[in-house]
């Protein structure tokens, strides 16, 4: 599991546990119904709830929006790889063997339909992916930290051989 997937697992588990506890509390509360009507108070507090939600979502937004994968550059030390996706194969064209520690810029194109260039590390963990739409060039920058054989899988449905559209490349120690 990738670092991001671990964060998701932890965050989602906590949220689900909290949500389940609240749901159970609401369910149990109907066993002891209230005599007086408190609807008015609860209705007014809905505004407080709105404020809480807005603040929470704003915090999540500020905490995550700067980690978008867009616009990365490989810099002068970068290694360039040209990737071509076609039904149902990847052509991966690297002039020199890829090495760890130096950014790799993948320039991906498609010759037919939409594909997605998904890269799994030697432990079979999905480490990054990007969509490849025909007639456009997609750039993805990644710095490999461990040497080994990386698996490529197509992650955008592209037809009958979609699940056969796999490949691999080797990253050598620097």
């Amino acid at each position: 599991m990738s670092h991001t997937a671990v964060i998701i697992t932890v965050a989602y588990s906590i949220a689900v546990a909290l949500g389940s506890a609240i749901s159970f509390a609401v369910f149990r509360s109907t066993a002891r119904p209230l005599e007086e009507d408190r609807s008015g108070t609860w209705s007014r507090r809905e505004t407080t709830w709105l404020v809480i939600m807005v603040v929470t979502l704003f915090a999540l937004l500020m905490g995550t929006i700067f980690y978008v994968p867009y616009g990365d550059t490989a810099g002068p030390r970068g290694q360039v790889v040209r990737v071509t996706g076609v039904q149902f194969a990847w052509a991966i064209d690297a002039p020199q063997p890829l090495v760890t520690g130096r950014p790799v810029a993948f320039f991906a194109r498609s010759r037919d339909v939409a594909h997605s260039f998904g890269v799994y590390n030697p432990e079979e963990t999905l480490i990054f992916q990007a969509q490849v739409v025909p007639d456009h060039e997609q750039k993805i920058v990644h710095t490999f930290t461990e040497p080994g054989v990386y698996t490529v899988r197509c992650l955008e449905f592209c037809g009958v051989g979609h699940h056969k559209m796999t490949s691999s490349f080797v990253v050598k120690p620097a």
Partner: protein
Amino acid sequence: MIDERSLAIARRLTISYVVASTAILAASGLLGVVLRWSQAVPQARVGDNFWYALMTAHGLGAFVGWAGFAVMGLAWWTLAGVGFPVRGFGLAMARITWWLMVLGVIGVIATTVFMGFGASWVFLYPLPFYGSGNWGDWATGLFSFSVLLAGLAIVTWCFGILHTVCNREALGSDSSSIGKRLGLAFGWGFLMPRTFAAKRPVPYPVIPLAVIGFDMIIATLPLAGLLIWQILQSMHVVGPANALLAKNILWWFGHPVVYLLLFPAVAVYYWLIPRYAGRNLVAGHVIAIAWTIAVIANVLVWAHHLYLDYPSGTPQAQINTAMQPITFALVLPSALSLYSLAFTIYRSRFRWTPASAALFFGLVGWLLAGLSGVINATIALDVAVHNTLWIVGHFHHMAMLNIGLLIFGAVYALLPELCGKALYSEKLAWIHVWTTFVVGMIFFGLWLVQGLDGAPRRWSVLPSDYDTLTRISLPFVFLLAAAQALFFWNVMQTLRGKGGVATFDERGIPEPTKSTKDWSVHTAEGALMLVAVLLAMAFAVGGYLVGREHGNAGGGGTTTAQSTTAQVSTGEGDVVTGEEGAVTGDATAGARVFASAGCGGCHALSAAGSTGSVGPSLDGANLSEALIKARVTSGKGAMPPFDGQLSPQQIADVAAYVRESSPVVAPPGSAPTPGSDY
């Protein structure tokens, strides 16, 4: 309140939508079982293209044909229940909607299951025109037309809804202006009571229906344009369109259509939860703010489905990033609605029946789907789960555990008042509701786990690392399907009047059947019979498919019946074999293998009508059968090995076919085009 005649009209409408959509659930649900079964059990594997065609049918059928269609129908009765009769223009639209939707779904099933169209429900352009010999332009044109019919059904439904919610009398509007009446229906009377003056506050269930009725027109029309383009392109009238633009148009529709399920469902929650709680919906005026955000944000979040499309030289990255905050804003209507509904239930004299339990579980499903949705909405987190089975888990929480349970709850709650007959068995309903929720949680939860582990979605055969969890999920798939059989049986017996005449308590909640007969024996017998019939039918369908697959030599399994035929036909005595005991190929069967295995995607071969350019052209290649067999079996370079995916017989067949159809000088089009004729 509205008159008896208007009630009768709304009642008939809702019954017709719900019955049709329930039939579609039965069909598309079974397809879903086949899909997971085929992934889990190698012996039960269906052909790859057939799997993708079923996936296409299951997606559109279950999502639009069942869940969407059902809540669209429940909307009419909900509106009638809060004093908004459907009549005149609105009624005409409502009736047209039913026909368009039914015809559209029939067309989708025909073009996928029988014509092999398998480009998935998002039919990501230009995939519909790259069928690798599995489907042709005819199928693409007809499929596009069928989806267009379903899209038009959504538009006519929207017009019907808008006509109904803008009813001046029902709104008690002081003004006759269309704009003011629409504003009232959006809930703006709560925010600006002077501008949007009315004799009564708008009933809450009206607001989400007005919002989605307005938004889906905006959302669907560009898609209709794309579909018409695809139809024209399939007739060779127009050329290719821009793929990135087409993808944006698809999701411009594809996101709001989720809310075509959710918002009418919210209307039903707003209407029924207070009934079971015995108090009014706990809602402040602030809820109108949330729905105003919804009406705008709903059509401005499409690019969160394109978070990982950011090709150079396009503004897609900027658009995507702008849509993360807008998507977050769209969390607010759900957050406020869940608050309101939870406090409506909290410490009320809530009456727990199968119907209200299903509604309550539906709210829990909504919460779960919403939480995973927030993760999808966050670009930095989406990179880890995009296009994995996590997404499949997310939207099954949404579609089955939220919308689905709401539909079941609404049917149990409303069927007695819709048809005047008491629910056949409350006990069966309890079993159905609990099983659906608990089993669904486990089954869909396993998808979430697989997705976090990087399992790709829309793979007919998953990488073997994921096999364990796929197999573990299989019993839950069957349990979920079996639970739905109880639902069908219960509804059928109710409609046949087996539960007696419906009676209601002071809140309008149907009372359990008064029948003194012991239900259990009859029900057990009936359920057993129904399950047996369903299973027999499922196996018959399975048998048909297996027969077809093997007949076409397109199956992914072991040596097929074909090989026997080929060997026997070579004459008496010994089976004639090629070099060193290899099987002899049959070129006719090979033509079908060539198409179904997708060879044409990479290789040009004029006899097969394929123009792929990844691998070398096979026209005039003058290859020996032995070399072809070796390359297909073991692969080379970018060419994947087909060993294990094709049987030795199939590989021999395709080698014979390629050998035969690529003479040294190949006049193009000299041979008939195989692959297009089945």
